[in-house]
């Protein structure tokens, strides 16, 4: 049986990846035959632009911001592209606030400061969890459990905080919007927190809570929403699939031997990728039968990144033809394509 994927040439980074959930974001720019990657290292975001012919790489580094200080040592929790119909924005979440840039990282268009206390409190303060929802929303999670909803105009910097959703009591870990492209899906957004609680939302002028799916005393570190199905990865190494609106558990996989750090879905084919501290990257195939509300999950492929605790894994395209991986202390993005 031949291998499904084979390793390609890695992309070198200016600095190594930090151990943070979902520490890899990919933006494919078809008209320019380019793919952008971002990886967080402490207070810096490493951005690499790679041409599809593999000949050109350019690097850029973005730093965390803090009040009026030009450069900050505050740590960045996550960086992710938000793809909206009219524009793509690069969002950085840190201990001090939320920065939004034009997609190539050239200009910062918006800064939102978090309420940070004078003296540090026992509970850390930070923003984490980023999702673009429908035509004009960018949602960002906060350590208090709040979800901030930003209204984004089709161009310019007049971004405003339109709503704050307060359902979670624990720190937000990750958020995801419906990625199938199917406008008939009722649920638009799922948010996850440190207790494993999943909240499913419908977007709008006022976001509406559709369901709260309780956790089982374990953090949900990564979450995806595809065709109305919530796919959640947990600290115990399990992946669970829930029907979003009803909260019905559809499937449970004992997928990894350590904490899951990253999940991604290829929306056109239903390929799912999971990566964890146990050094394994696994590819699965999901098929959903909406009539019977049932799911099929088939294991497709394993890749062991030797001696590496993986912190980010993403498909590079909507079919899942290629994927990229980052690991703690690694200064490269490892890439794989289908054989």
């Amino acid at each position, binding site marked *: 049986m031949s291998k499904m994927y084979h390793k390609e040439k890695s992309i070198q980074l*200016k*600095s*190594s990846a*930090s*151990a*943070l959930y979902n520490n890899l974001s990919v933006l494919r720019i078809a008209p320019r035959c380019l793919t952008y990657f971002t990886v967080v*290292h*402490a*207070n*810096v975001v490493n951005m690499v632009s790679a041409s599809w012919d593999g000949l050109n790489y350019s690097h850029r*580094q973005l730093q965390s911001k803090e009040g009026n200080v030009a450069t900050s*040592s505050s*740590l960045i929790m996550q960086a992710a592209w938000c793809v909206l119909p009219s524009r793509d924005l690069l969002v950085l979440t840190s*201990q001090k606030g939320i920065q939004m840039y034009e997609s190539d990282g050239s200009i910062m268009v918006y800064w939102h400061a978090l309420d940070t206390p004078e*003296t*540090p*409190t*026992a*509970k*850390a303060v*930070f923003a984490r969890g980023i999702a673009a929802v429908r035509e004009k929303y960018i949602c960002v999670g906060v350590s208090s459990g709040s979800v901030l909803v930003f209204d984004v105009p089709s161009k310019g910097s007049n971004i405003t905080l339109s709503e704050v959703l307060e359902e979670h009591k*624990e*720190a937000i*870990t990750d958020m995801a919007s419906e990625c199938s492209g199917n406008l008939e899906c009722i649920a638009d957004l799922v948010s996850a*927190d*440190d207790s494993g609680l999943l909240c499913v939302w419908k977007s709008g002028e006022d976001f509406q809570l559709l369901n709260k799916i309780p956790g089982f005393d*374990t*953090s949900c*570190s990564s979450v995806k929403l595809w065709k109305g199905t919530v796919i959640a990865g947990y*600290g*115990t*190494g399990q992946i669970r699939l829930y029907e979003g609106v009803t909260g*019905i*558990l*559809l*499937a*449970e*996989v*004992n997928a*990894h*031997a*350590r904490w899951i750090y990253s999940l991604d879905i290829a929306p056109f084919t239903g390929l799912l990728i999971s990566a964890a501290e*146990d*050094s*394994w990257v696994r590819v699965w195939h999901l098929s959903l039968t909406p009539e019977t*509300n*049932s*799911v*099929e*999950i088939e*294991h497709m492929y*394993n890749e*062991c990144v*030797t*001696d*590496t*605790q993986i912190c980010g894994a993403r498909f590079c395209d909507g079919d899942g033809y290629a994927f990229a991986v980052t690991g*703690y*202390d690694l*200064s490269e993005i490892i890439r794989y394509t289908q054989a």
Partner: protein
Amino acid sequence: MSTRTLPLLFINLGGEMLYILDQRLRAQNIPADKAKKDWLEEERKRVMNDIITTMFNKKFLEELFKPQELYSKKALRTVFDRLAHASIMRLNQASMDKLYDLMTMAFKYQVLLCPRPKDILLVSFNHMDAIRDFVKDTPGILSQVDETNKQLIEVIYTPLSGGEFQLIRQTLLIFFQDMHIRVSIFLKDKVQNSNGRFVLPTSGPVPYGTHIPGLIRIFSCSGEELRRMQFRDGGNYSATLREGSFEMYGDRVIKLGTNMYSVSRPVETHMSGTSKNSSQHTKVNTTPNPLAKEELNLLARLMGGLEVQKSTNTDSGFRVNLFATDEEEEEALISRPDELSYEVISIQATKDKQTNAALAKIMGEFGETSEPAPSSSSKGDDLLAMMDGL
């Protein structure tokens, strides 16, 4: 990130430091003469007691346990420099560098290999248990250690969730980022590769609360299991061991954090061959002033609580060498790569007059308040004379 990381970092690094010093002190106990042997044994115990007393100083720990961001590497190194010199023991620069390398790589290893983030607490308890054993004959210090242990358990860490422990772990991993110093005891045991990276096995027991990978279960809408399948996970995992005890006393189950050194297994570090990445990484603290004002204030409060027997004359006191010979120690100092130099905070480094004055006052306070007892310095002289005669 997490504001509760510093106590764990301090206790675990301190624990490793004690393991290493204990091993070196025993290893240097070479004279055949029984009287000298007994006397050196006394000195060893005294050095250990002095350091542990300082480590668990009440005021010092109060400051440490307050919610705060992690110190910079520089600031933390300064704290441990002070701690290492809290007795009549003296370490040269090269030995202190090596000691710090070993401590940090050992704890980095323990943090990485912890099955669950919460198990970092069990690693800390292993260190605390060993420290308790070092001072078991000295009730005064023992009660200090016990009190700290209680605080750790009840006040600080019991209410934390798994996700919050993971945040602590992630904060620690950022602190240790890009450190790949090779430690010969790790290389020999095959837990570290020759490129300085640790071996992460894909076999062995899964963490408590995790299932062995392999099972897929599909459910119906009513919640009953429709079918189950197995997939090949590629690893060689086995069932979890029982959970370690988070009480004051108990079987911790996890071996990480227990003493891996012994007189017959000395430790060396290799400076060459460290990966290129170590020079590439961006430093977390990008403040232009080498000593951030906040850190200075913190250090001042901390140092105020530390009683240090400071001796300006490096010839007095009991010298410990972390290398096999004096020549090796000298060679190590000269050949240490730039990117691995620890910048210990010194008065000359600060340009700010106010900062300078404040720091000078702190350093000055040490000299005034702590005079080495006459008997100890003469003991030190005796020892040195004796070693010269060997």
